[in-house]
């Protein structure tokens, strides 16, 4: 899941203060699941915005509408007829959703209400942890299911560095386990240490330009368009 956090109310007010009618669009996808951009959070943000606008003597009308996902154009059909009634849009989706809304309505200013933070998992309700940097060349099979790209502060492929603490924590943050310490412990437990004994050579980074991807089964279908 993509995890986001709400921008400070002051920053959001600053973005929309020049507009009279604003539509706040929620997303039923990841940001709804991580409790920051669904219908409920749209309503909470709008209530806060109305209060903040009142305090600043701003007269902005703010409405709410949540669609199933902002990262698929099929879900925009309900939104299409509404857009003309507004002179700006606020999006509570991740950065991908914000850009897709902006692409759909090129004449409308679209503003992000969230900062998109990471791809991660639920630790507990409302508590999330980053686990994947979407590097495009997964090594988890060799590293005991622990990602060195994401979880090692230096992203080492031949760790651990010399900074691992006595209790197996990262030198950068004593609350965070050293990824390579955990990789070592897990592989030892599984008797698979040979996985990390060989020198892992420099990788070809595949995430340095925008990526697009067509699944194998669809390659023929899009062959002409490419």
């Amino acid at each position: 899941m993509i995890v986001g956090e709400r921008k400070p109310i002051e920053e959001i007010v600053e973005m929309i203060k020049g507009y009279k009618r604003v539509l706040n669009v929620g997303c039923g996808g990841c940001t709804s699941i991580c409790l920051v951009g669904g219908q409920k959070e749209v309503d909470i943000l709008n209530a806060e915005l109305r209060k903040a606008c009142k305090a600043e003597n701003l007269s902005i009308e703010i409405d709410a509408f949540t669609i199933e996902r902002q990262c698929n154009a099929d879900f925009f059909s309900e939104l299409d007829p509404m857009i003309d009634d507004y002179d700006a849009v606020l999006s509570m989706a991740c950065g991908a959703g914000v850009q897709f809304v902006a692409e759909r309505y090129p004449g409308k200013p679209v503003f992000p209400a969230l900062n998109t933070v990471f791809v991660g998992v639920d630790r507990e309700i409302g508590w999330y942890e980053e686990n994947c940097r979407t590097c495009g060349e997964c090594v988890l099979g060799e590293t005991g299911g622990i990602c060195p790209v994401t979880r090692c502060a230096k992203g080492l492929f031949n760790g651990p560095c010399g900074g691992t603490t006595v209790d197996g924590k990262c030198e950068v943050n004593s609350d965070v386990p050293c990824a390579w310490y955990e990789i070592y412990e897990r592989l030892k437990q599984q008797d698979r240490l040979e996985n990390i004994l060989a020198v892992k050579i420099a990788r070809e980074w595949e995430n340095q330009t925008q990526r697009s991807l067509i699944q194998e089964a669809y390659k023929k279908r899009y062959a002409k368009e490419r």
Partner: protein
Amino acid sequence: MLFCPMERDVRMKSGSTLEKVLRAGKFAFTGELGPPRGVNVEAVREKARHLKGVVDAVNITDNQTAVVRMSSWATSLIVLQEGLEPNFQMVCRDRNRLAMQSDILGICAHGIRNMLCLSGDHQQFGDHPKTKGVFDIDSIQLISMVKRMRDEGTFLNGIEIDGPPEIFIGAAANPFAEPFEWRVYRLAKKIEAGADFIQTQCIYNMDKFRDWIRQANDMGLTERTYILAGVTPLKSVGMAKYMKTSVPGLDVPDEYIDRLQGVERKKQGDEGIRMACEQIKEFKEMKGVAGVHLMAIEWEHRVPEIAERAELLPRPQV
């Protein structure tokens, strides 16, 4: 699980003094010089003058502790002009593979023949804590890249180099960080990648170091690389406590602090040097230790005295 013991490649790789001393079987002695936080060239020359004729080579640190300083290659050149052999340090934090390879060609073109390959302290510890760390490749991949440039005459991408660099390749090892039992295997990986010599983290816990070097001996690793034991004399009780609690990857047993506390404040530096000399004397006799790397932080002027007291002078002429 074990790496096959292999013989050391007997061919001269770089012709540096450090390489010649080690290949001649002499006990090597290297120092360290931290570049200034500005263009204070005289400060570099002053530090270099204390070390000339005292050490076989001097490590020039690369933005150590992630604090901006005069670049390590530029400082290395000044040191070279002073008649002292530099050991150019390069970290993976600040350069991508393009910058690394061009700097390697550049230093070699200017006559620098030793290089130490490091990951680098994380930027969070430095003076620009929110900078973007590069870490395009890691330290072991850097070692392998330099070896490839030197021995195969190609860049990392396989393209031929017009005049390959001749470099004596160094790497660091920390015998004290966890998981301890994996550390010797990481040393093996560094040797496998191409490390001709190793300089260790500052050693205080001698028991643990003896254990680590025994493992390296048992695995045949000390036959394949030259290990220089890292020594940093403690200047005071305050420094000892700081090293114990605030420097990642250091292990300072209480006996060091107790010994420093046992003497009056003015004499603590002298006691620190005495302890360092005791360590050096043991390293000289220790199987698998080929030399000492003295990191006398901002104490370059005391190095001649330490070398004298540790009976490391005169340096061998090779």
